């Protein structure tokens, strides 16, 4: 105990130790500007090996006192840093920083507490700047703003429903049944990205068996709560070789988000306002009926005659409607207001933002609203201690409608699929809707009367403390503590009043879900930088991490609801479902980074991890990592000239993915009798020895920078293996169980990422920046210890995902029409490409666009077959098949016996974003410092042969089997007008 007290005292003393006295005997002053003569505000001027320094003011001026022997380093984001000996400094020196076009001086995160300049990096770490994220054509939610921007990623929107819901897979499939989504870290806080079902399965019965929730309930992803406007930059660690140090949750990659911080200088106030309109991107169209076609729907002669007469009556009265347009043809109005204040002194920086957006959907009564407050404070307590605190409150609300698969006929798309244009669905003068004679629901009534809302209140708070513990000429040691809390309360409200046609039996259903989730995490580390000489330095870091999660979800389903009520106790029957999950992951890590004269940069590290989800909770699993980068230009092997920088790099690392919560237990199910509560053994056998999935990734590549950074190339190859991936294995029932979790096999992803950045034109009046990326991934299941398992879809009759040894992990198999199950395609695209361009005229007018090309990849399109079966597909009456019958009828006849027509190419070329912005710099009113106006189009042009609403779709959400298309909420496009003022 005494030892412990001494230790604590030691901590306190070390943390609060005042600065060692400097011999400050020279005053240095100067001015910093960019190559075109504009002053650079907020550039940092630091004495090398210390944290002592200052920043430049609005005119680019600074003063600093330093010892004569000191080296002064001048740096600013986006510029190449320069260093000077204080001795050689002339008074009022004018420093011109060169623009860092190739981003070689960009600082990239390489450890939990350490960073390195890109020029020395052993990995290909993708970065998205604030401008790329949000400066083109802003998307509705943060997750949608990532689309098409990450080389090596497969990003797919699950549906177009307001509020987001996107799957991000970095470098292929990393897990079959476990988590496939990357870890999001916002200012050091591990942010939750759970998708919580609102319990819609209780109404739609999309998954059989009477469960309240299913994977087909189309929930949003919680990461969508973040505001893209607050983000300064995003770094993406795509695999274990870069992300190993994040341990337990890093197997699917890590997305590190840094929000904006206040910088020293004048306080800048910005107000921006966007106004826009949202419409459906593409509608399928509907079948044009005539009297014969109407009659052909009849079951018998009398029915046909009645339908023929119904059609003729409707036609005579002019009551032929395009219901698809009525359901999905709404124009949503969008507004977004952001106020931000940023500024500070040399010791304190403050960034504050308040924002609100409110957007309508393409279906009436749907939409999205997000209000957010953020306060980031950075404060340097003294020369040795600095602290950063970031806080964020978000209130978001999404009305998502009722779409996707259902077995009741309640969802909009399924109802539309069987409703012909001569059906009469409009309300009468009293507002009462007629029953739809062609389906089990009247979609117009459902839209008008139902509610499906997700509403979130969320706090994210992070703390970042850095204390200099020790310092001398050669070495300094810092203590770095980072951590935070992410807490949210999610309320889901799904109300289906008894007046709805499909509620005839239940007489109204009210589903109220309440979710609370608390995530905490911290990392405590010691970082020592040892500078042996100008040419050799070592950074040693060691520390410990902990992450906890506590998730509670309670869903009450009330039926026989009193008219006009939503409260679940105002009902005839009530049924509750609860799900609780809790985990703690702990890790220890040590990492060594060496830099040898910028020639070689060597990194080695090891992490020990354990998790309460593992079979053996006490056991630490060991995950090593190592990386080397070798700079050939610095070596002198390549003469200075065309090539400025040529780097070879190789990195290796391992990370894990913890087992699914509860997979180690054999649970009892409830089985009561005559008033006594009883237990029967459940159908899933637990595995006490369940292990985490282990990912090992080897990445190698070349980075080349040419023509003073104006042209750069990055080539990367990776080989990523996942050992012991988890599968839900079907057991023979003689075992007494149906299924069991198992570490069942190994799979591998191999891929290539090629990137080019260039500035083809650079004149005073015209600057064109461009980047082009190309990437592809191939996966293969290399070992499977159990028979092949279907993993998502609706069986081989329609095409299903199937894990099979020797095949791609995302293959789709199905019946070929002759009774054989064959491979029909692969969800994995052949390749993807993107290009982001910014063309600036006269430094004022800026055109930005993002083009994304996904070549190949297959979806399972069941929207089309539902429309064929319901007799409403737009091309139903075309005859292109050999049997000489209508195509719709032909395709409907293949259902469940030939899956080939349903597995369709989902490639596309999409102009995701295009925006044109103009900045006014000289304004007549002197307190307005800047005015920007712009127009943008998001998701406006898509070229695709895919026959659904959108090639981006996933009925099953973010799991392995994305691309199954069952009447989703159609995707939308948007046009916005932007104006922003700086004070």
């Amino acid at each position, binding site marked *: 105990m005494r*030892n*412990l007290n*001494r*230790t604590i005292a*030691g*901590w306190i003393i*070390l943390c609060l130790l005042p600065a060692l006295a400097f011999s400050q005997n020279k005053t240095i002053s100067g001015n910093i500007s960019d190559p075109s003569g504009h002053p650079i505000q907020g550039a940092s001027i630091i004495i090398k090996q210390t944290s002592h320094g200052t920043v430049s003011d609005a005119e680019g001026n600074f003063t600093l006192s330093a010892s004569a022997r000191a080296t002064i380093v001048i740096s600013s984001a986006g510029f190449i840093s320069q260093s000077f000996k204080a001795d050689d400094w002339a008074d009022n020196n004018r420093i011109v920083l060169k623009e860092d076009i190739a981003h070689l001086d960009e600082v990239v995160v390489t450890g939990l507490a350490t960073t390195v300049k890109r020029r020395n990096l052993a990995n290909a770490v993708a970065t998205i700047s604030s401008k790329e994220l949000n400066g083109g054509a802003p998307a509705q939610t943060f997750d949608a703003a990532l689309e098409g921007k990450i080389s090596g990623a497969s990003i797919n929107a699950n549906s177009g429903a307001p509020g987001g819901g996107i799957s991000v897979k970095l470098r292929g499939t990393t897990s079959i049944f476990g988590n496939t989504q990357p870890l999001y870290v916002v200012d050091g806080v591990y942010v939750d990205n759970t998708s919580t079902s609102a319990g819609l399965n209780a109404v739609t019965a999309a998954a059989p068996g009477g469960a309240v929730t299913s994977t087909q309930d189309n929930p949003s992803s919680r990461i969508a709560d973040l505001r893209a406007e607050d983000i300064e930059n995003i770094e993406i660690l795509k695999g274990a070789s870069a992300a190993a140090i994040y341990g337990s949750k890093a197997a699917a990659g890590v997305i590190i988000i840094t929000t904006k911080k206040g910088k020293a200088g004048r306080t800048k106030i910005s107000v921006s306002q966007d106004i826009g309109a949202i419409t459906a991107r593409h509608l399928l169209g509907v079948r044009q009926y005539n009297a014969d076609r109407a009659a052909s729907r009849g079951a018998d002669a009398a029915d046909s005659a009645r339908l023929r007469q119904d059609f003729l009556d409707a036609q005579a009265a002019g009551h032929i409607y395009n219901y698809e347009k009525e359901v999905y043809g709404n124009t949503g109005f969008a507004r977004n207001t952001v106020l931000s204040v940023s500024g500070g002194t040399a010791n304190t920086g403050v960034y504050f933002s308040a924002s609100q957006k409110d957007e309508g959907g393409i279906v009436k009564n749907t939409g999205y609203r997000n209000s957010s407050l953020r306060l980031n404070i950075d404060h340097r307590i003294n020369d040795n201690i600095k602290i950063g605190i970031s806080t964020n409150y978000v209130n978001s609300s999404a009305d998502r409608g009722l779409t996707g698969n259902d077995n009741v006929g309640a969802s909009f798309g399924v109802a539309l699929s069987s409703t012909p244009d001569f059906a009469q669905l409009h309300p009468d003068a009293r507002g009462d809707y007629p029953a739809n004679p062609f389906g089990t629901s009247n979609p117009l009534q459902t839209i008008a009367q139902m509610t499906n809302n997700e509403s979130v209140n969320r706090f994210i708070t992070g703390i970042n403390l850095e204390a200099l*513990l*020790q310092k001398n000429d050669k*070495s300094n*040691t810092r*203590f770095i503590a980072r951590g935070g809390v992410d807490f949210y309360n999610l309320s889901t409200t799904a109300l289906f009043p008894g007046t709805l046609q499909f509620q005839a039996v239940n007489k109204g259903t009210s589903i109220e879900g309440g979710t609370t989730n608390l995530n905490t995490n911290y990392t*405590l580390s*010691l970082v*020592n930088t040892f500078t042996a000489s100008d040419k050799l330095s070592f950074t040693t870091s*060691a*520390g*410990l991490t*902990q992450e906890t999660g506590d998730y509670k979800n309670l869903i009450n389903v009330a039926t026989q609801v009193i008219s006009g009520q939503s409260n679940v106790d105002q009902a005839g029957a009530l049924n509750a479902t*609860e*799900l*609780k*999950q*809790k*985990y*703690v992951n*702990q890790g*220890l890590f040590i990492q060594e980074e060496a830099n040898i004269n910028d020639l070689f940069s060597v990194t080695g590290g090891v992490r020990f991890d*354990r998790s*309460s989800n593992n079979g053996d*909770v*006490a056991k*630490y699993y060991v995950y090593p990592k190592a990386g080397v980068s070798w700079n050939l230009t610095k070596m002198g092997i390549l003469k200075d000239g065309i090539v400025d920088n040529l780097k070879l790099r190789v990195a290796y690392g391992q990370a894990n993915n913890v087992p699914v919560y*509860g997979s180690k*237990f*054999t*649970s*009892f*199910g409830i*089985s*009561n*009798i005559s008033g*006594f*509560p*009883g*237990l*029967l*053994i*459940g159908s899933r056998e*637990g595995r*006490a020895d369940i292990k985490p999935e282990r990912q090992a990734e080897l990445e190698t590549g070349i980075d080349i920078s040419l023509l003073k950074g104006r042209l750069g190339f990055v080539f990367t190859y990776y080989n990523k293996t996942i050992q012991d991936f988890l599968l839900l294995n079907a057991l*023979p*029932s*003689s075992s007494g169980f*149906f299924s069991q979790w198992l570490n069942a096999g190994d799979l591998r992803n191999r891929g290539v990422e090629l990137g080019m950045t260039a500035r083809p034109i650079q004149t005073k009046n015209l600057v064109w920046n461009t980047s082009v990326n190309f990437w592809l991934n191939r996966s293969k299941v290399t070992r499977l210890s159990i028979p092949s398992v279907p993993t998502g879809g609706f069986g081989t009759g329609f095409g299903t995902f199937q894990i099979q040894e020797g095949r791609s992990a995302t293959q789709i198999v199905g019946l070929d029409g002759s009774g054989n199950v064959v491979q029909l395609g692969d969800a994995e695209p052949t390749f993807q490409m993107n290009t982001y361009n910014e063309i600036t005229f006269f430094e004022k007018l800026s055109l930005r666009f993002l083009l994304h090309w996904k070549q190949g990849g297959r979806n399972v399109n069941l929207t089309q077959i539902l429309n064929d079966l319901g007799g409403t597909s737009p091309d139903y009456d075309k005859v292109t098949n050999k049997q000489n019958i209508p195509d719709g009828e032909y395709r409907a006849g293949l259902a469940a016996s030939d899956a080939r027509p349903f597995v369709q190419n989902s490639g596309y070329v999409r102009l995701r974003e295009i925006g044109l912005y103009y900045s006014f710099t000289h304004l007549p009113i002197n307190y307005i410092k800047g005015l920007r106006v712009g127009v943008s189009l998001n998701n406006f042009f898509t070229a695709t042969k895919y026959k659904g609403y959108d090639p981006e779709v996933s009925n099953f959400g973010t799991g392995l089997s994305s691309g199954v298309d069952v009447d989703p909420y159609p995707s939308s496009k948007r046009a916005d007008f932007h104006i922003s003022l700086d004070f």
Partner: protein
Amino acid sequence: MKKNTILYRLLLPSLVLFSQACKKDYGDLNHATVENFIANATVPQLNNLVSGTESGMRGEVTLYLDDVGILGRDFYRLNGAEPRYVTDMVGGGQATLTGDNFYIGN
């Protein structure tokens, strides 16, 4: 030397504390588990199992009687929808029992 002191004073004790103190197993928060019942089950736990067995019996006893009745040649079960009663279960022709779930579950 100073570096070593820091390591010794701060890091090592933290590591020891960390690795010893925080090992956690939350168990299954949603269900009773076999692992909890298997050793030293309490009387209320056993009562739950008894009620469960009774309840399970009511649901499954007809299938059980079908199975043992057929295997013991007590009766010959004619079921148009389920020919395996007279093929697999009585060894008709080449039929053998499989790991299928029909015999002991619904």
